[in-house]
């Protein structure tokens, strides 16, 4: 069964968000990494890029396929996880901690209210 940490918010498209002040950290869920398996490549956005909620801004590739990662919130990219780009397997082994994708400075914190609670996300993935 997939791990769904209770301190995170979730997007329908299987990203998670961890909020600290006005900075949100974004990654993909344990369920998503388990579905993808064998992650071999992570493409991250450039720092300073402004993204809108729902915009594709990163790519994760398994052996089989390439999948877009959508930012769950709007804002400016302030940091990306070079460790995940160097060692994409981190996303498989630690999807909601060391395998994070990018940090974003929130331009519209109210968007957080539209994200799914852990309970709702669990329901969505049939857990």
């Amino acid at each position: 069964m997939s791990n769904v940490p209770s301190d995170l918010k979730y997007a329908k498209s299987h990203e998670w968000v961890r909020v600290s002040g006005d900075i949100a950290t974004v990654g993909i869920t344990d369920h998503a990494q388990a579905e993808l398996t064998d992650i071999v490549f992570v493409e991250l956005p450039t720092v300073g890029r402004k993204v809108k909620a729902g915009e594709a801004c990163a790519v994760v590739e398994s052996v089989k396929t390439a999948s877009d990662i959508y930012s769950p919130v709007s804002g400016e990219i302030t940091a990306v996880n070079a460790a995940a780009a160097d060692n994409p397997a981190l996303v498989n082994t630690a999807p909601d901690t060391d395998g994070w994708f990018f940090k974003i400075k929130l331009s519209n914190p109210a968007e957080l209210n539209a994200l799914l609670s852990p309970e709702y996300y669990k329901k969505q993935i049939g857990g």
Partner: protein
Amino acid sequence: MLKRTSLYAAHQKLGGKLIEFGGWEMPVQYTSITDEHLAVRNAAGIFDISHMGEFFVGGAGAEAFLNSVLTNDVRKLPVGLGQYTLMCHERGGVIDDLYAYRMNATDFLLIINASRIDEDVAWLEKQNAGRCDLKNLSAQFSAVAVQGPRVKEFIDAAFPGSAVAGAEVKKVSELVKNQIAIFIFDYVTIYISRTGYTGEDGFEIVAPNEKIEAVWNRLLTVGQPFGLKPAGLGARDTLRTEACYPLYGHELDENTTPIEAGVGFFVSLDKGEFNGRAVLAEQKANGVKKKLITFKMTDKSAPPRPHYAIWANGAPVGEVVSGTQSPTFNVGIGMGYVPPELAVVDTKIEIEIRGKRFAAVVVKKPIYKKS
């Protein structure tokens, strides 16, 4: 409605992740493509290949008929031997690539691609015009492939006994590459050949639908101590890509000839007339406009994928037809078509991935060859 093989319940029980492939609902993986790929390279893997077609050609004229529709020369086949071959139309384009086995003097078994069964049957019936006895038994037969360096250690335990027809062998492991024989399993006859699509030693077993689950379970039981794992279509694709075996719809199609695809070795121009011969002879003598290459990424990049553009000397020159991250070598690999002057080992090319170009180099095929 997607078609399901007789092993559908077995895949569900094993936790296989099912996807659509050529109209069939098939397992893409059970655990992970990389795990399953490495199991086949280092020990053994078992694949459901029941979606593939079984087509029987019999009668006094069978040999001559097959030699008129296939590119390889079936006269070279003694009883119990098979060959890789291609079926072309008059313009030399490939209708299908297949294995042809001689079961006895007048009976042949063709193993054809799942996605091409309808086209193949229509084409063969039209070409035959009543000369031979043709039977498409694809719906009655299922098949599994068991592949890997350790398979020879347990195959005889799975199917004890001598062959009753085909190659004259005392046990399955006496079959040599491309040989086929009929054995008795659970009171029915099954076909076992020493063939595969992974670049490893291994066997393919064709059995009636109602017996295939017993074949599958028997192999899983006797193979488990040797590291045998169920493997899905994902690993089948990465394994065949490393071995540089063509996949119909990727390297081969009706607008591509065997000469362009680099499988001219299986075209017997000197055997007499056959469909496509004139075009293939002309291409062999005067060259082709596109040629299949094998390449490896030299830049760190995302894996190459089908339809990505191939560039050389600052211009787009062709397209990737198969590509993946090689689980054996942990590098991006692929095959693609380019003008023949670029189809030279060590030629530097670039693969365009999401608008950016990454360096790659043309390499000798196969990328993986078993030691």
